């Protein structure tokens, strides 16, 4: 188990190093510059631009810049945000927890939605209900997430006024709030963005889980369970479900980075102050250090997601557990 974890850790480090190198190269080679004389509507004197470029080391050859960035990164220093004039670490410390909250909620919801839908379809395999639910899942999967988010906003925020449309907390509630009231408020804001992500991601989970459930329901041990007089509920929810969980868990683990960093557009739609929005703004500002840092976080999350998936599968299926 220990050697296994060490191997995974080494692999994660190698992945992250590769991600850093590629991202660094991409952002520097892409057209555009963080500091441009006369950018947008403001006039910035060329001397100022030159001073800024010198201050952030952008006037050095790319190789030197990379060596310096890598050395700082190895010491845990993510550099400074050009646009925000703050350390990147501080920017991430603000936004990452919000993204984790949204992503984790969406992950749990997408598993519940995907597994539930998969079971509902598999137990009706081949009927019109299976096809109808499959069409629903396909619809969730194929519409753009931001469009789905806008529709949910329109229905639940604008028409029904059930849920807040933007942000993470109600700024009009000025009264000092205790922990529970605050948590409830954040929860209300969390519903729509989490639901949007969960519907899209859960549809993919449902597809895999339907196939796994159909296979499990046809297995000898399921028929044997029926032959023992067990109720259909128990046969489906214990015997078939338990043995069919692996694909859903693996998929959920693989979707961890997508849920956390790929939620850029959804975070923008809902004004969620998370990392996705930070990345979105950084890309437009050519804020190199922030973009690279987000990529590093994504690389780490890929490794964490894979590890979680493996541990989850091992928890669900004793056959893959290591001695």
């Amino acid at each position, binding site marked *: 188990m220990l050697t296994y974890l060490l191997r995974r850790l080494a692999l994660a480090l190698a992945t992250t190093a590769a991600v850093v190198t590629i991202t660094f190269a991409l952002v520097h080679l892409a057209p555009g510059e963080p500091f441009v004389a006369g950018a947008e509507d403001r006039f910035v004197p060329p001397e100022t631009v030159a001073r800024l470029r010198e201050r952030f080391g952008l006037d050095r050859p790319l190789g030197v810049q990379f060596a310096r960035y890598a050395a700082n990164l190895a010491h845990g220093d993510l550099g400074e945000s050009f646009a925000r004039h703050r350390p990147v670490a501080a920017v991430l410390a603000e936004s990452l927890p919000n993204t984790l909250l949204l992503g984790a909620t969406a992950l749990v919801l997408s598993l519940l939605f995907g597994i539930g839908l998969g079971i509902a379809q598999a137990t009706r395999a081949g009927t019109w209900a299976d096809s109808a639910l499959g069409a629903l899942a396909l619809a969730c999967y194929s519409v753009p997430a931001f469009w789905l988010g806008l529709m949910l906003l329109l229905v639940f925020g604008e028409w029904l006024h059930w849920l807040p449309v933007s942000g993470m907390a109600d700024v009009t509630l000025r009264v000092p709030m205790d922990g529970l009231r605050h948590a409830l408020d954040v929860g209300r804001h969390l519903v729509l963005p989490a639901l949007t992500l969960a519907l899209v991601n859960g549809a993919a989970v449902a597809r895999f889980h339907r196939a796994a459930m159909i296979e499990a329901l046809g*297995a*000898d*041990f399921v*028929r*044997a*369970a*029926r*032959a*023992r*007089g*067990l*109720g259909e509920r*128990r046969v489906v929810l*214990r*015997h078939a479900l*338990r*043995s069919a969980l692996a694909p859903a868990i693996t998929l959920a683990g693989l979707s961890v980075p997508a849920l956390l960093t790929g939620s850029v557009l959804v975070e923008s739609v809902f004004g969620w102050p998370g990392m996705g929005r930070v990345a979105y703004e950084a890309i437009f500002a050519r804020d190199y250090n922030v973009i690279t840092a987000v990529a590093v976080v994504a690389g780490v999350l890929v490794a964490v997601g894979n590890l979680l998936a493996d541990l989850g599968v091992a928890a*669900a*299926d*004793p*056959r893959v557990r290591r001695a």
Partner: protein
Amino acid sequence: MSDPRAPGGAPPSAAGEAGPLPGAPLLEIADLRVAFASEGGVARAVDGVDLAVHGGETVGLVGESGCGKSVTALAILRLVEHPGLIAHGSRVRFEGRDLLALAERDIRAVRGNHLALIPQEPAAALNPVLTVGSQIAEVIRAHQHVTRAVAAWRAVELLTSVGIPDAEKRAGQYAHQLSGGMRQRVLIAIALACGPHLLIADEPTTALDVTIQAEILELLDGLQRRLGMAVLLITHNLALVAERTRRVYVMYAGQIVEEAPTGALFAAPAHPYTQGLMAAVPRADRPAERLAAIPGQVPPATAWPSGCRFHPRCPFAWEKCREEMPPLLPAGEGRSARCWLLAERQGPDAKTPSPQGASGGR
């Protein structure tokens, strides 16, 4: 189809006297038909089977793979799955109730309780992600009102009673951590969990090593004697049937082709198919000739032959066999066979089939 046969006559088999047992049979199957709709047409896998098992007796159901014996077992428990269907008019009476007419929750109360199945393939019949102990305990809890703890306790007791050492530890393990023989013992424990009156054992030893086979059979024998349950032993293994059963049904192409007390069947098989099966078994007490295989193959269930279903492979077949299906005809004391030869026997130049004749038919 109760069993009004004359007593005596037949030589006693290993399992004792083969005459009729008093009282109504425990299990009585009448005109059981199971069909599967497939692209190649309708497969009539079981086609009019009559069969009876009395309390406490061991009855064999023998035949080649594909003859419909496993489907018969599933049909008894009403576990035939889509696209299979049990035909209207089929009857499966168990302890006086027609299982095919019961409501879903009532048949569930029978399955695994008074009527238990040891399924084929012990490797596949246990859930790979649940501990074996929990699989035993859940059967107990499905049929009896006991607490989780009591059920778990009994599961360990059952594992001990089927000869699993260190049962406490084994109960917490998974199927893949057990050997093949051990898994079969677990499946026996599951089947016995609620004290069944009838145990259907579908090829209980086929997947096992020869040495383990004997152990499992000893175990089953001992348990049967102790618990007084009846056993319907489904197998293709004639030696097993000869040793363990009291009466035998021989199945071919979805039908019962011969029914006889075990001793009588092995002394003088009446149906040419049964004769062929026996000639195909190697024997140490005979000079080493070529083993006589039955020529041809079992026809597909979507296209049974006309008339007698065995006629394309039968060395004695004539016109009538091709045209008309024989009914089960009396063939001596307490036995019958589905063969026109038995009807011809009354005639002066009756062709009496003999085992030698069967092997010489090629």
